[in-house]
């Protein structure tokens, strides 16, 4: 006679076998507070565990490449600003450098200085945005408020320089559209003095908060092999320890005259290449950007702010693939020109497009909350993903 224990065990194990639990197909739809825009992730979950998370994109496909075939080279700049609308200055700089490489215009030194200053300020603003929204994803509302408060100061500087708050059309082919004024220089300097200590404050506020660490360490781990296979660049690559920054390795503009170092993830809190590493690399990159702007802001040389460029930019026939380091990775423009006023074909290789394609492989078998943490750490902008 089996003891009551065995009977209960037998009954329990027997009844659990044919207990069929279905997997839930969940649409983390195009409208979702933590998908950073119109990204749709089709999630197959077994309870809390994510079986598969296939991202669906294309909800913000605005036909950039079709537009760039029907507008002249100066007219493409407003569309390039709207690609990665959190880092418009970096996109515009990438586009301007690509076209100048083909035409061979000599950009005056003053314009180069102004360009690097604005590009680095834009990098700080973009990383502040990523810091704010990543805090929001993890439930920390103050990070969003602090991040936006400081970002507004940078937007005020840009409005004084270029006339617009978010999409500037400031970097024209051959230089910059308006000269930098002494008030803008003074305001930048006061911003730098105000902002430098704030980065450590924000690290104490969010990055070294134990709850934040527990939520992001060992989550969404990427190794170097996956990076090369997916073609990931920028913060994703530096997050897993590879010291590769285009501004250092293949320096364009005047980055070779500026010294700064490249922060690299080192697996302090968890394994190497997890969400926390990527976050801390972005925070330390802000410090480096402040250092760069400090070195340039005081000795902007005199001279014209734009080189000799006619009303219509004439580009000789040819092809060029030029890469620049954007806050989200290496943004490249592959321009095919047939010598007419309009480009024959413009291909924008966007880093976020490849970043989000890794989502399925990163989030197999994780909790749904970690799926949100991984999407937040990829720091995607849908304007650039869908082009």
């Amino acid at each position, binding site marked *: 006679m089996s003891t009551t224990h065995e009977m209960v065990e037998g009954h329990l194990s027997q009844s659990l076998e044919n207990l069929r639990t279905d997997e839930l197909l969940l649409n983390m*739809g*195009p*409208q*979702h*507070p933590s998908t950073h*825009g*119109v990204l749709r992730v089709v999630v197959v979950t077994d309870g809390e565990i994510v079986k598969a998370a296939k991202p669906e994109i*294309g*909800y*913000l*496909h*605005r*036909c950039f490449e*079709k*537009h760039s*075939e*029907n507008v002249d080279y100066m007219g493409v700049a*407003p*569309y390039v600003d*709207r690609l990665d*609308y*959190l880092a418009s200055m970096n996109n515009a700089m990438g586009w301007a450098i690509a076209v100048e490489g083909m035409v061979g215009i000599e950009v005056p030194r003053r314009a180069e200085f102004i360009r690097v200053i604005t590009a680095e300020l834009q990098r700080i603003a973009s990383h502040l*945005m990523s810091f704010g929204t990543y805090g929001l994803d993890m439930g920390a509302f103050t990070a*969003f*408020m602090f991040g*936006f*408060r400081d*970002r*507004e100061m940078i*937007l005020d500087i840009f409005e004084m320089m270029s006339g617009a*708050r*978010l*999409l500037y059309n400031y970097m024209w082919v051959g230089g910059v559209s308006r000269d930098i004024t002494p008030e803008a220089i003074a305001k930048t300097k006061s911003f730098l003095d105000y902002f430098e200590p704030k980065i450590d404050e924000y690290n104490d506020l969010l990055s070294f908060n134990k709850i934040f660490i527990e939520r992001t360490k060992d989550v969404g781990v990427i190794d170097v092999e996956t990076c090369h296979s997916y073609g990931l660049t920028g913060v994703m690559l530096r997050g897993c320890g590879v010291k590769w920054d285009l501004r250092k390795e293949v320096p364009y503009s005047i980055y070779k005259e500026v010294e700064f170092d490249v922060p690299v993830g080192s697996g302090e809190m968890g394994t190497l290449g997890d969400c926390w590493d990527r976050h801390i690399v972005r925070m330390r990159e802000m410090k480096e950007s402040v250092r760069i702007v400090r070195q340039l802001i005081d000795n902007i040389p005199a001279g014209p702010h734009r080189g000799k460029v006619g009303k219509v930019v004439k580009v000789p026939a040819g092809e060029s693939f030029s890469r620049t380091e954007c806050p989200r990775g290496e943004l490249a423009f592959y321009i095919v020109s047939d010598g007419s006023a309009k480009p024959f074909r413009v291909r924008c290789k966007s880093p976020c497009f490849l970043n989000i394609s890794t989502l399925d492989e990163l989030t197999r078998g994780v909790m749904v909350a970690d799926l949100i943490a991984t999407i937040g750490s990829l720091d995607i902008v*849908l*304007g650039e993903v869908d082009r």
Partner: protein
Amino acid sequence: MIPSDSVVMTSVDEVLSWGRRNSLWPLTFGLACCAIEMMATGASDYDLERFGCGVFRATPRQADLMIVAGTVTLKMASRIRTLYEQMPEPKWVISMGSCSNKGGPYWHEGYHVLKGVDRIVPVDVYVPGCPPRPETLLEAVMMLQKKIRVQESSMGLLGSLRKPA
């Protein structure tokens, strides 16, 4: 006796309309660059919360106001129509930015862009700009509140529930 200045005589409609227009709960619904300016409006510098409009609800079930901020693409259009239908009845739409007004810079070659969100959703206030300044969005919210005051009180209590179909 009740001191006369402390008593406010008003119709139930006025109170209903006053309550509605001062607690418009928007739907978190950012599409593109205008969404960043909408978030900047919601953040600390230009506070949308001062107009009772700062509580961004994630689900359409609890939202009264849909701010369409960004480019409406054809793939997204059916979703916007579904979201609009899921919102409870007294609902309003603000179309923010040139893209959702009439297609904006993407009207010429945008094969995948819907030329204006008012083709799928009735719009109450059009906000110009690309992207509009946060103050422009605040002014649009104030214009919408004016429109609610005029529209509600003129139709009476039951009228306000029977929005023109």
